[in-house]
């Protein structure tokens, strides 16, 4: 049932031919062919690079102070000087969005890391140990799947309290189940292969076998899932910060920027539109890249 739900599974376009297998060629020629053949992917990678750089060095793209309010420049529409317009206090929206990247991206990375580590460990344990451990862990995972992720995240926030970190942890825990399932399936697949059997036959300790043979070979699909989860986590984190559970007001964060702009929606559409467009562009790019990764890596398996 989950393979139906997996957004990766619905790659409608025929997967591009694996570049590695066609002709050897030099590195530069391959790169050139790659750029020409898939402009969408190139744009997506550029967007992601832009987001990553803004998160670490926001001043590169927006040298100003995100909290600097110039009352004379209140509610200016997008135009030269203010690409994204200004908000109700006269703060430059572009600067606020670029500086907001840091908090939003930190939360997203934390969420994905929590999901990957916790889900991965549960799946690895269930798949490697098997027996009743597998049975118990997978039943817990089934239960987590019965609760919509957003509601599970909300319950965790009600328990842990507000703040960007808690939102991130909540989003991460809420998506543990997916990771556990994929990791378990992969572990089971790898555990049954001849090389793991051979390793056991020559007397390799179980933890060496786990670390050197099972984990590296089972990790691929889980890492692809992590990239995909990245897009979902951006959406979940920004939704929760839109609802007001994230960072407290003065700090810019993508979701809370949209929430701030909401009160001025009738007159100043750009206060909502621009941060939202940034979220949408980022998620689309991440999904595009994860699809490409799945196409390349998934083919070989």
């Amino acid at each position, binding site marked *: 049932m989950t393979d139906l739900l997996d957004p990766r599974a619905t790659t409608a376009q025929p997967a591009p031919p694996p570049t590695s297998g066609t002709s050897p060629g030099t590195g530069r020629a391959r790169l050139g062919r790659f750029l020409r053949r898939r402009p969408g992917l190139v744009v997506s990678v550029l967007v992601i690079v832009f987001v990553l750089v803004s998160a670490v060095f926001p001043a590169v793209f927006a040298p100003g102070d995100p909290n600097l309010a110039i009352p004379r420049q209140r509610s200016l529409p997008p135009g030269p000087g203010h690409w994204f317009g200004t908000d109700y206090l006269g703060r430059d929206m572009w600067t606020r969005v670029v500086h907001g990247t840091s908090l939003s991206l930190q939360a997203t990375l934390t969420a994905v890391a929590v999901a990957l580590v916790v889900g991965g460990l549960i799946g690895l344990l269930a798949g490697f140990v098997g027996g009743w451990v597998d049975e118990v862990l997978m039943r817990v995972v089934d239960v987590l799947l019965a609760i919509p992720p957003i509601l599970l995240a*909300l319950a965790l926030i009600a328990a842990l309290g507000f703040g960007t970190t808690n939102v991130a942890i909540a989003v991460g825990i809420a998506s543990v189940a997916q990771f556990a399932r994929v990791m378990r399936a992969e572990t089971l697949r790898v555990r049954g292969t001849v090389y793991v059997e051979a390793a056991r036959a020559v007397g390799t300790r179980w933890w060496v076998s786990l670390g050197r043979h099972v984990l590296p070979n089972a990790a691929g699909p889980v890492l692809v899932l992590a990239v995909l989860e990245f897009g979902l986590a951006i959406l979940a984190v920004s939704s929760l910060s*839109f609802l007001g*559970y994230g960072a407290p007001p003065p700090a810019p964060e993508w*979701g809370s920027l949209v929430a701030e702009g*909401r009160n001025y929606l009738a007159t100043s559409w750009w206060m*909502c539109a621009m941060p939202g467009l940034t979220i949408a562009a980022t*998620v689309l790019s991440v999904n595009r890249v994860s699809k490409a990764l799945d196409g390349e890596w998934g083919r070989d398996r």
Partner: protein
Amino acid sequence: MIYPARRLGFAVLVLWAAYTVSFAVLFLLSDPVATLVARASDGASVTPADLAALKARYGFDQPLVVQYLERLGAAVRGDLGTSFVSGQPVGATIADALPPTLQIATAGLVLAVVFGAGVALVATYTRHRWLAQTLMGLPSLAVSLPVFWVGLMLVQLFSFQLGWLPAVGARGPEALILPAVTLALPTGALIAQVLVKSMSTALAEPYVTTARAKGVGPVAVHLRHALGNAAIPALTVLGYVAGNLLAGTVVVETVFTRPGLGRITVEAVADQDVPLVQGVVLFAAVVFVVVNLVVDLIYPLLDPRVTQAVPA
């Protein structure tokens, strides 16, 4: 006979586990007593006697195992406890909030099925590659947009710019349109993705070739032969669809300032109203489990191969 009984047993088991998980999250991770004290005292100091009375009133003076068993027993009897904030029973609060949420959820479901099935059917029917590619790209676009932002942009366009539809509130059927569309987008995308996949599988089956060879028209092959079979696997995601819709109302009701279950949830989380949050989580789990149970029970009637495959 054994198949329904096993399914029912499994459903009950999932509900019990969902209760336990939500209890663990809400009553162990947080400190409900501290929340209660903060609420009751408004910052003033609390005497030990008051604290003990407060704990006794909500049963927090008992050992955790006793608390868990007592609350579980009450939940089985339909008593989900009382809200920390309003003091009202949780069950009644949820029941009161349900009708407006059911309205947008139903409208959203109808729109989602129409959008999703429409996109999937046209995309698999058309011979124009560009049209198929564009239509198949729509679902992945729809799931990439933040729901709250889509709602706000619809309000900006249709309420403020064009003045066609009300921006907020729940009065009249026209107030239902924008929330329902917003809610239907991600759900419709899910339905479209699933249906495109099962339609492609069905269209490659020998019975489709046979039907074509017999001279059945392309529309009849597509709708009667292929869709009839492709819709059955798509039923299995109905539980997810219901869960999606319910979760979507949290954001949609906030964006459109509508009353309902989603709004209650947002407020309960903000107030750390632990019993109410647990009630909503359990309600969602019940919806998921019941929908899946119904699908599981109907499935063998639609596709008799299932009962043969599952040794009863």
